[in-house]
């Protein structure tokens, strides 16, 4: 049976399976802004769901990225919210981590409209990230991958035919791009959470994905003196020293760096899989996107298939009046047909492993399918110690990455600040 027929059947089954709810209004506070394509897809899904369940309507508040903060304040003021969404790490460090969301383990184990359970339909590595302290308090439905995105035509013109698997191959490829007359790598100087991915990936490849958390949790701070840190920073510094990142990038404010990709002046950028969508209106017709995994560092302990992601999840605040209806909607939103619509119309990666992604991010889907594990932002630091992650780790790294401090100053600074952080906690 063709995929289309299967999708059609699953949609009918999903709608028919709609649980009967008496006059229910699901209050949904959204992570998206209303004009965004993701919001438009969710609107369409809500309409579809209401058509199948005429007693269920939605009251939606489109809050945008500060949704969780707004939800927190509203909950504190006594507002009842049945369903909300936010980024996965944010939820694990916020609503879910603070015990203010209901457990969704039963929903994960419940039947999916497509057969099997809801949990079985989701990428196992992604679902694993949603688990906190042995329980699932959020269900991811969409996500982005951090990879090296590139202009495939420029890579070909530079003679780069094979995807670089190691750091040495990667450097050779970037030098070839540079020699072809195009800048090799774009960066945004002011976006520390973009730039930190160089360090995150290098440390994950050299010392393994647990290293950063281990270093942050070392109350003496001395783990930051590990040779892996220095090696990672020296590899980063070589990108600047070899001219692969233009010196003037130090003055780029977002989106100045990524625009150089759109203008055909730069070939690659390490960034989230939202880049092709953000630049969709600026690139020439026929612009050919590619994305490669961050290369392996020779002799490292990590895995080249580990991929850092940024996921968006549904959660149900504790005390939600219509929690059952909200769970049923999540079940529907994670069905194959609903997820396919999200992937096709919003051009975003989706949680349901059986869904194909849009062409521009097909390499990202491949990375996810082959991933040994999907790593959270800042390798778990953002969830465990958000203030350390933002105020110390990202801030200090941006200084060394942009040459404001030396590698020695970075190492000494991290030791001192980590020690101070724990003494001051």
């Amino acid at each position, binding site marked *: 049976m063709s995929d289309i027929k299967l999708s059609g059947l699953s949609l009918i089954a999903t709608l028919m399976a709609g649980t009967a709810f008496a006059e229910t209004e699901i209050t949904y506070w959204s992570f998206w802004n209303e004009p965004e394509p993701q919001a438009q897809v969710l609107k369409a899904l809500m309409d579809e769901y209401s058509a199948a369940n005429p007693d269920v309507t939605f009251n939606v508040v489109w809050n945008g990225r500060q949704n969780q903060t707004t939800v927190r304040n509203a909950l504190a003021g006594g507002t009842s919210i049945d369903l909300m969404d936010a980024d996965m*790490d944010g939820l694990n460090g916020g609503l879910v981590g603070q015990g203010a969301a209901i457990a969704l383990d039963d929903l994960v184990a419940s039947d999916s409209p497509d057969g099997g359970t809801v949990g079985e339909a989701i990428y196992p590595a992604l679902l694993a990230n949603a688990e906190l302290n042995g329980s699932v308090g959020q269900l991811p439905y969409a996500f982005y991958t951090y990879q090296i995105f590139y202009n495939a035509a420029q890579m070909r013109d530079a003679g780069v035919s094979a995807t670089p698997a190691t750091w040495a191959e990667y450097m050779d490829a970037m030098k070839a791009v540079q020699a072809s007359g195009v800048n090799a790598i774009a960066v945004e100087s002011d*976006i520390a959470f973009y730039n930190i991915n160089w360090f995150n990936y290098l440390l994950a490849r050299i010392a393994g994905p647990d290293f950063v958390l281990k270093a942050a949790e070392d109350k003496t701070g001395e783990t930051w003196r590990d040779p892996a840190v220095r090696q990672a920073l020296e590899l980063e510094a070589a990108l600047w020293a070899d001219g692969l990142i233009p010196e003037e990038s130090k003055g780029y404010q977002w989106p100045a760096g990524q625009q150089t990709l759109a203008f055909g002046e730069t070939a690659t950028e390490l960034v989230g899989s939202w880049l092709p969508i953000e630049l969709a209106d600026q690139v020439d017709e026929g612009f050919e996107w590619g994305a490669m995994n961050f290369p392996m560092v020779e002799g490292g302990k990590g895995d080249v298939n580990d991929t850092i992601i940024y996921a968006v999840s549904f959660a149900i605040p504790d005390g939600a009046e219509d929690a059952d209806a909200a769970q049923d909607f999540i079940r529907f939103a994670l069905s194959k047909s609903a997820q396919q619509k999200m992937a096709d119309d919003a051009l975003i990666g989706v949680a349901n492993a059986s869904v194909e992604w849009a062409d521009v991010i097909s390499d990202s889907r491949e990375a996810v399918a082959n991933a040994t594990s999907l790593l959270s932002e800042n390798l778990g630091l953002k969830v465990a110690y958000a203030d350390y992650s*933002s105020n110390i780790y990202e801030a200090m790294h941006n200084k060394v990455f942009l040459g404001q401090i030396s590698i020695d100053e970075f190492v000494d600074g991290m030791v001192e600040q980590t020690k101070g952080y724990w003494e001051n906690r």
Partner: protein
Amino acid sequence: MIGKRLIGLFVTPALAIYLCFFLIPTGFTFYFSLFDWSGFGTEAQFIGFDNYRRLWNDPTFWLSFRNTLALLFVGGFFVFVLAFLYTILINSGIWGKKLFRLVFFLPNVVSVVALSAMWAYIYNPRYGLLNTSLKAVGLDEMGRTLWTSPDNIFWAMLAALVWVFTGFFLILLLAGVDKIPPDMYEAADLEGANLWHKFWYITVPMIWDVMTISFVIWIINAVKMFEFPFAFGFLQVPQQLYTLGIYLYIMGFGQRDPIYQLGYATAIGVVMLVLAFSLIVLVRRLMRRDQLEF
């Protein structure tokens, strides 16, 4: 007696509003600063002055504090020097007084996000207006400056901020100047006073009260400065641009990170309040003098 009762009657509504919407919330702010509280739910742990002890040892707090002081004093210096300079020029009888007033005030009616986007274009290292103009007049070396690099971004933001605020204080000062009787300047002209003499010996003393209130408004604005540096930082405010207001927001509300330390953020708010209050008292004491009537 009746007069006193009547005064009480008229003052009561204003006092009640002030009490409910200012004094009580301020009291609660201090109260919450004594707790470790994420803001999720009502569970908060009383920790006494621990948040203040943490602030004392927090390098990011001191960075934000230094930036706020730089903004207050360096920014304030340039804002008022320029505002006074324009006041002299505009009041010197040049053509188009109203037009200039409008032009200088215009940034205050434009959205902060639009202004920051405009300045991002001005500072862009490749095609920005500033570097392109510098190169066009032969200043090639200066035209290669990375104005928004980590070393320069705070001062670049401050320059833009001075541009925004100068117009506002210019309007305040001009409003004061407009009230000065013209015969004072005429008499000074007859005595052979130059522009500077007229400004220093007539304008400044006559608008002393306006200057005092302008300084007070600037202190309040500078201590709680948030919008412009925040918008200037676009997706993620670089730490170089942190002010006390931004750090409060980051710690209490997160930006991209689930920090959610509302008790700690509230302690920053209390420090801001104390700082603004102390500076205002100081300025008012330093600038106290007999009322001039004319």
